[in-house]
């Protein structure tokens, strides 16, 4: 039966290849559909068992059906087999099908190639520093699997194979680094990049009470900032994100339509110049220091509500040079459309908050500043608590918060405050972003983490424009002056609590972060401009692509020479003692006269033959033979004999 082919028993390297595929696939698992993961695990386990138990491999028609089914399933899920998401799933499933029909070293090699490619796809997804050890580990492992498939001696232990694989890669590393630095970088992309919708931590364009406190639990880095001059004081470190205008009684939203007239900004005081490097968020938002005043053309623009936005989503680590003015007067003229947007409220809901607003407005004749003062005093003096773990709120969320639970995070305070201001007829909006940041003295930059996520409010005051009001500062001034950990109750779990309490751990974390920053700046964001910059610093004047070509050629040549020398050393012959070396020299010299030692001819026999063949040299040769015998077999080999032998050999002129 041709259809039922029995696999080669104990296919060499198969367990290694399956393991390498698994290792390369592991980081994709959270992104794979559950059925795909299950199928792949099943395929791997089945093939492994089939190899051990020598089961029959599936017939060809079944494999063809499997390929068809897999293709349809991927198409059904993603509508394409292209792009990182669908492509990865498709490739992984093809590897699974290939696994079923694996018969020889060629199939296994193809599977290792797929493992390399899956690893590559994982790097496309995420290229942060922790990926580096993963990359190196899987590469060593997959290469070991390849070596196992094509391996030499069967008795090699797994550790030997891993060590040899690591040795090969270590030898490959220098050239890889040179290629990385010198290979010409072309400004991409050459074809469209379809990025999937991935959930990454970061600010959204909507805020419901609880969102920011969820975000704040994460200690992940949001962005890093390197200032040219002094770092502004904590109270000025408001990193402006999405501005939320639309309120439905519970959630605040960024308007979908962005067609509003822009407003004028006057800058006051000294500017702050800095470079901000953002971790990927899949959103276009650039968290500039409030108020952004200058930004690179074409890479960013400022919205009507003063948020800095990139024209594309930030799917990679991105960096921008910006200038901001911490003091400013913004939007003294308020267009009607914005006024309407700034006072919009749902027709009903939160009646007690509205009543409070009406009462305050009546008491102060609608003066926004006075109303604000009263509200902040209320937050400060009444038993409001700043906490990461506020109670759940029901329908009239803001009423419940203001008059009953009184426990909330920044978004509760900002939301309640803005609602009351709007109900009092004052244009107001919620601004989300980050506040504060931690200075890293090792790397000399500011780290802003997700736990620094914050929400505050802006109100519009006639003649003074948009004013920032941060109700959180009234409840928990430590949040603004220091950080989240200091602002929370001591028994509340919060990210960075360990860092705050333990100076040694703080050092470890800051060092790790400095490494990450270095990685992001020097490796992840390496591009054509930085390449030329690096060459200039290495001493090349006015480098261009010819410099790169020259550098590449020189690197390759040096690499090849080094490698050849290494291999010559590796395959060197064991050192021989002096008599043997001198005899080899005699044989070399006599070779010119056509006397070559036969395969089984010892030195003595050879020299005796030579004496007869070459009468002119017979005396010297006899002396050489005698000295050789003395040195090799004599009871007391001595130095002077060796010197005489060397002399005689050197004198030999056949």
């Amino acid at each position: 039966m041709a259809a039922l082919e029995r696999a080669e028993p104990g296919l060499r390297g198969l367990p290694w290849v399956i393991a390498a595929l698994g290792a390369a696939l592991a980081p994709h698992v959270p992104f794979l559909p559950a059925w795909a993961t299950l199928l792949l695990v099943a395929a791997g386990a089945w093939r492994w068992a089939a190899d051990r138990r020598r089961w029959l491999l599936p017939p060809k028609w079944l494999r063809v059906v499997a390929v068809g089914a897999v293709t349809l399933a991927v198409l059904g899920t993603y509508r394409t087999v292209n792009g990182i998401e669908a492509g990865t799933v498709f490739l992984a499933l093809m590897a699974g099908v290939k696994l079923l029909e694996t018969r020889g070293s060629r199939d296994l090699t193809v599977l290792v190639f797929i493992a390399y490619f899956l690893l590559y796809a994982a790097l496309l997804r995420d290229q942060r520093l922790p990926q580096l050890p993963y990359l190196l580990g899987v590469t060593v492992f997959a290469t070991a699997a390849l070596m196992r498939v094509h391996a030499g001696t069967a008795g090699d232990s797994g550790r030997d194979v891993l060590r040899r694989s690591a040795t090969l890669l270590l030898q490959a590393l220098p050239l890889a680094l040179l290629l990385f630095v010198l290979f010409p970088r072309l400004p991409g992309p050459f074809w469209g990049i379809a990025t999937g919708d991935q959930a990454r931590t970061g600010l959204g364009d909507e805020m419901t009470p609880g969102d920011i406190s969820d975000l704040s639990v994460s200690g992940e880095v949001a962005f890093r900032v390197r200032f040219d001059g002094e770092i502004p004081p904590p109270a000025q470190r408001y990193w402006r994100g999405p501005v939320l205008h639309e309120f439905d009684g519970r959630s605040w939203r960024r308007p979908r339509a962005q067609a509003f007239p822009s407003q004028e900004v006057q800058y006051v005081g000294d500017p702050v110049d800095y470079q901000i490097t953002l971790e990927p968020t899949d959103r276009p938002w650039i968290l500039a220091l409030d108020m952004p005043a200058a930004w690179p053309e074409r890479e960013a623009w400022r919205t009507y509500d003063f948020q800095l936005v990139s024209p594309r989503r930030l799917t990679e680590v991105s960096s921008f040079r910006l200038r901001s003015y911490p003091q400013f007067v913004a939007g003294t003229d308020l267009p009607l459309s914005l006024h309407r947007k700034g006072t919009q409220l749902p027709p009903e809901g939160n009646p007690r908050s509205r009543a409070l607003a009406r009462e305050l407005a009546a008491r102060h004749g609608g003066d926004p500043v006075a109303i604000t003062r009263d509200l902040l005093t209320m937050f400060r003096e009444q038993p409001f608590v700043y906490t990461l773990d506020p109670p759940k709120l029901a329908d009239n969320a803001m009423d419940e918060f203001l008059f009953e639970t009184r426990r909330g995070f920044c978004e509760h305070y900002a939301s309640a405050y803005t609602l009351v201001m709007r109900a009092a007829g004052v244009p107001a909006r919620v601004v989300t972003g980050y506040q504060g940041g931690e200075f890293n003295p090792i790397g000399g930059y500011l780290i802003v983490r997700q736990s620094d996520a914050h929400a505050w409010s802006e109100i519009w005051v006639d003649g003074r424009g948009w004013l920032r009001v941060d109700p959180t500062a009234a409840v928990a001034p430590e949040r603004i002056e220091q950080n989240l950990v200091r602002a929370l109750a001591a028994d509340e779990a919060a990210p960075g609590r360990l860092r705050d309490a333990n100076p040694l751990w703080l050092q470890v974390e800051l060092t790790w972060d400095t490494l990450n920053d270095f990685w992001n700046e020097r490796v992840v964001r390496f591009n054509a401009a930085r390449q030329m910059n690096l060459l200039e610093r290495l001493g090349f004047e006015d480098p261009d692509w010819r410099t790169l070509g020259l550098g590449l050629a020189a690197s390759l040549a040096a690499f090849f020479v080094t490698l050849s020398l290494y291999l010559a050393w590796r395959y060197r012959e064991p050192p021989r003692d002096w008599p043997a070396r001198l005899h080899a020299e005699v044989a070399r010299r006599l070779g010119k006269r056509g006397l070559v030692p036969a395969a089984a001819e010892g030195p003595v026999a050879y020299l005796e033959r030579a004496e007869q063949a070459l009468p002119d040299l017979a005396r010297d040769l006899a002396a050489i033979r005698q000295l050789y015998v003395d040195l090799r077999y004599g009871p007391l080999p001595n130095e002077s004999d060796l010197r005489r032998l060397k002399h005689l050999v050197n004198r030999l002129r056949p």
Partner: protein
Amino acid sequence: MARPLARLRSALDARVQAWIRRRQGIDPDPLRLDRRRIYILPTPLGIAYAAMLFAMVLGGMNYGNNLGLGLAFLLVSLGLVVMHHCHGTLSGLRLRLAATESGFVGSEVGFGINFENTALAPRPRIELGVGREPKRVVDVPAGGTATAELSVPATRRGRVRLERFVVATRHPLGLFRAWAVVHCEYAAIAWPAPAERGRVPPGIETDTGGAQEHAQGDHDFAGLRPFQPGDSLRRIAWKAYARGQGLHTKQYAGTDVVSHVFDWDSLPALGTEARLAQLCRWVLDAHEQGEAFGLRLPGVTLEPNVGTAHRERCLDALALFEVSDGRA
């Protein structure tokens, strides 16, 4: 369609090989493979690897993904390292003809090639073959030797020549194949295929007892002596073996020492090859029976004797009978 093309290709190949042979001459034996005679090219898998790396570099450029590019460059560099290792595995290997193995026409003759590795590093996965496809794979340990046999089908009686063979390796990752073509002049002997059984051997000359001092015959059991290679299987004392006493050969002494002489002239009815085939059959049968036999061909006479060496001498004489060969 494919047949004439393949024939054209093999004809062309033969021409090229002949030209190389004329140009390069016969290699010495023993031979040390040096870098000048080793060729290296990527295998189909190596080409697939290169294509994958090309896609990786392109994708890395497109996505501006430096870590992906880093992986691609690491693998490119790995490929180049492996190329050098592949070449180094072969470079400096010494080889010589260890032994030839004769065989009957219709089966195969063998050329035992001995590999010697004088270096401190092992040379694994050395492939030996006549064409591209490896026939044997051996690992040559550091400072050691290994032998692999190259089998060549014996199609005609006489000397089977081996004019070239290929030593290659794909070590360590199978991405490259380094190879060297060795031009040699080895010959093994192809014995004539034995004829069918049936024709009775000609007259038995019987020596009288005592004429031979240690005559061995069939009739009277005279004792056991330890088994020696070449002894007939029929004379092994299996009962003694079964008792765990080791392999012994039964010895007989007798007045009748069976001693055939197989004569070319006793088969006048047959053609040359048929005669040789028949003589071959008789030689084999007599040897198997443990009987002494001699051979008489025009110009060649081998006196009756026993043993494996004698059998091979006789078979060689049959194989080389009237073989016209300039170089023989």
